């Protein structure tokens, strides 16, 4: 154990194996590699997330090339892809593997680990007023197990038979039978191992986040004085804690089916004319287990973005967030509902239609808390004294994407309409807007906003604007036409459609989508440059560059381990006292007691003076 949590928790006496004789200087490894400081761990998650995002994005460019120009020859890709390109044609099984890995990487490694790993770690201790996470050691383990999962998943990309290829949902029997496709061989085994480790990492992180929020809030930081970011991160952790173990069960059973001859998911299968001995299992069972995780997972991806965006919009509109308690309530509502809607992913799998209508009803109810959130963001922006920082642009972009993607969610939630739309590009367009691009916007928003706290320097605003507009335009150019392609009936996961007469008329549209996708991917290098350049050469940040109320801005510009050099500040008010009538400034930090702000106190606050 390093010299870390010295005076971290006065109330806590349970640091096992803790040596109390330290104060020695940390060496390089303790400080940057096996660090137990939540801020360093957050940055580690962020760097890994960015690396994975570029890998995942690159894969999408590769398969968009195939979809956009199905007749073209890709000999120029041979130096990169080697045997996967024969005579200038992409191997169809490799296409499937790329689609699978793009989904897996983006959903789990970028938007789960990269997003909530970064911001939950970074912001929870800073915003609740704690010296560090409850257990720094477990936090470190969480990152390194994630790292191990990343290595295995990355390694699987270079297998001769390719990585997993059964889609990111890895439905058996396809994924359970190695003889079915190349992508169900070693690649799938490694996928399962990597995901099992990933789940362990998520659970280690999750229990830490929740325990920290419950036990380590500073004096005065009641649950209704917490910034919405913390509410969102906590509920994200709860969702992960309850849904990931179910994926773990599903994956373990699948591992047994694959490697030890059991028949949990397998029954009555003929492969290459030969009957398999497996009997009695059910493939639908896997889908139920998978989507019991899978649906909360989309909220695990989007809730942190909700929190980040609420915080950034309030700060940069210089207005209190509209409906703070309604925001908490809607987060709670979405979290609860997320566990009872999983079967809307399975409307056409042969499920009882009556069950389908129950799940449809529950699914459509989610529109209510989601709309509460959207209207509250809009009401916060309404007549605000808006500062268009780069983070704010991304926050507003997020709201736009969330509305556009959310509306198609209402369409897809109908079990009858789903008969036409399931497994088409309409679904792809829907979830890329509402949880893919939107969560990415939340992530960018968070990076631009908290970059000064992370690295003590500012990111370049102008490059940020360029990055925002190019990304924003590219996202709509890609996914708006995709809805039309989907309504026309284009199935997803197809290598090409040139064999179908009906789909030929959309070739141009697909080329257009591909060009826009490549354009959008290229724009991300502006962000990458800005990010790396600003770490070393950015303008130095002041202590509170955005004039924000929350606790993290009361720490020094470059907070050391322990976050606050002296005593942890106490908290007296909610975090959204922006532009309070009668106040000297347009913001009142949470650490200012009411006795100091008599000119702006409301009648009910007088008693607190």
């Amino acid at each position, binding site marked *: 154990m390093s010299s870390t949590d010295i005076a971290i928790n006065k109330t806590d006496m349970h640091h096992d194996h803790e040596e109390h004789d330290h104060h020695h200087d940390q060496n390089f490894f303790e400080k940057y590699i096996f660090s137990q400081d939540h801020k360093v761990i957050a940055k580690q998650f962020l760097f890994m997330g960015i690396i994975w995002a570029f890998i995942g994005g690159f894969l999408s460019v590769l398969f968009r090339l195939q979809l956009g120009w199905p007749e073209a020859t890709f000999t120029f890709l041979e130096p990169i892809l080697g045997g996967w390109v024969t005579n200038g044609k992409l191997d169809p099984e490799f296409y499937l593997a790329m689609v699978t890995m793009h989904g897996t990487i983006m959903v789990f490694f970028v938007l789960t680990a990269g997003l909530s790993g970064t911001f939950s770690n970074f912001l929870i201790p800073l915003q609740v*007023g704690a010296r560090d996470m409850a257990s720094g050691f477990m936090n470190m383990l969480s990152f390194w197990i994630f790292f191990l999962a990343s290595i295995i998943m990355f390694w699987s990309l270079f297998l001769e038979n390719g990585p997993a290829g059964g889609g990111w949902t890895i439905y058996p029997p396809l994924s359970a039978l190695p003889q079915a496709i190349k992508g169900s061989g070693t690649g799938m085994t490694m996928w399962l191992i990597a995901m099992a480790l990933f789940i362990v990492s998520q659970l280690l992180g999750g*229990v830490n986040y929740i325990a920290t929020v419950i036990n380590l809030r500073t004096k005065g930081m*009641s649950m209704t004085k917490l910034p919405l970011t913390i509410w969102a991160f906590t509920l994200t952790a709860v969702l992960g804690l*309850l849904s990931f*173990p179910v994926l773990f069960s599903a994956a373990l059973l699948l591992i047994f089916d694959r490697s*030890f001859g059991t*028949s949990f998911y397998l029954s009555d299968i003929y492969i290459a004319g030969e009957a398999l001995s497996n009997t009695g299992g059910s493939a639908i069972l896997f889908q139920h287990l998978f989507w019991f995780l899978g649906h909360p997972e989309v909220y695990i991806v989007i809730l942190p973005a909700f929190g980040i965006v609420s915080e950034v919009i309030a700060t940069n509109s210089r207005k209190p967030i509209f409906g703070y308690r309604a925001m908490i309530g809607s987060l709670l509502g979405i979290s609860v509902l997320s566990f009872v809607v999983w079967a809307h992913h399975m409307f056409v799998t042969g499920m009882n239609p009556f069950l389908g209508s129950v799940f449809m009803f529950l699914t459509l109810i989610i529109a209510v808390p989601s709309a509460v959130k959207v209207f509250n963001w809009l009401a916060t922006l309404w007549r605000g004294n808006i500062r268009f920082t780069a983070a704010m642009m991304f926050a507003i972009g997020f709201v736009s994407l969330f509305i556009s993607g959310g509306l198609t969610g209402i369409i897809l939630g109908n079990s009858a309409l789903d008969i036409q739309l399931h497994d088409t590009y309409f679904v792809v367009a829907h979830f890329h807007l509402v949880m893919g691009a939107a969560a990415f916007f939340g992530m960018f928003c968070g990076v631009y906003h908290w970059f000064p706290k992370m690295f003590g320097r500012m990111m370049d605003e102008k490059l940020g604007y360029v990055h925002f507009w190019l990304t924003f335009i590219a996202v709509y150019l890609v996914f708006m036409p995709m809805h039309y392609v989907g309504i026309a009936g284009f199935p997803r996961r197809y290598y090409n459609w040139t064999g179908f007469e009906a789909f030929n008329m959309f070739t141009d549209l697909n080329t257009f989508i591909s060009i826009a996708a490549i354009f959008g991917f290229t724009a991300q290098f502006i962000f990458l440059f800005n990010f790396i350049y600003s770490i070393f050469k950015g303008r130095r940040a002041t202590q509170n560059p955005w004039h924000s109320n929350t606790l993290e801005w009361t720490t020094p510009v470059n907070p050391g381990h322990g976050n606050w050099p002296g005593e942890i500040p106490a908290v007296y008010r909610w975090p959204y006292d922006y532009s309070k009538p009668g106040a000297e400034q347009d913001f009142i930090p949470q650490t200012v007691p009411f006795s100091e702000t008599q000119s702006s106190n409301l009648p009910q606050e007088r008693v607190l003076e």
Partner: protein
Amino acid sequence: MSTSTTLEAPNTGTWDGGNEPLKASYGKLMMWFFLLSDAFTFGSFLIVYGLSRHSHMPYTGKVEDFYFSTEWWPIPEKVFNAFPGLHGMDLPLAFVALMTMILILSSVTMVLAVEAGHRMDKNDVQKWLLWTILFGSIFLGCQAWEWAHFITGDDKGMLLADGTTVFGANLTVNQYGPPLFADLFFFITGFHGTHVFSGVILLIMVFINTVNGVYHKRGHYEMVEKVGLYWHFVDLVWVFVFTFFYLI
């Protein structure tokens, strides 16, 4: 920050921060949350059991006429009726009842260890931990025997359609009925057994620390309590596994 803030007192309610609102240290909270998520893991396995069983035919004839067949799900009393040393006797669920009793007894001794920890009575903690380790290990031993018997099968075996007779069960063939019955038995009791095994390892570690006086020096035996939570959870899960596999 002005100096007057230090004179100001922030709110001090249960949930106002700066305290432990649930009156539990973060370590205990983490253990509770872990157990909650582990409950979901076991829950999904038991749901898999329920659904798999539901998709198979039940035995509809008279109990006396029951015989093993892949056509129907076996009656548990007919499968688990052996007892070590009493070969060939029909003692339905006797052995598993004994196992269950032993595990429940280990929970009792665990409670006593935790209670001794509250009294800071090192010797008592040691004593009760040792009993818990002993009972836990006996349970694991019993399970090993149970597995061994399940794998070897009884003397009769099951006659297959092609004229061969199978004895015992593995992950692909099963003399007691549909293969899935054996798959689920091995998987779920195995997963539970792994938990008990981890628990015994944890108990041994805690026992060594107790003997070395680590907790006494620390001033509290909370580690014993945390492992105790885990142990009771594993015990509780067994009650459900037992109910699903043996009773229903």
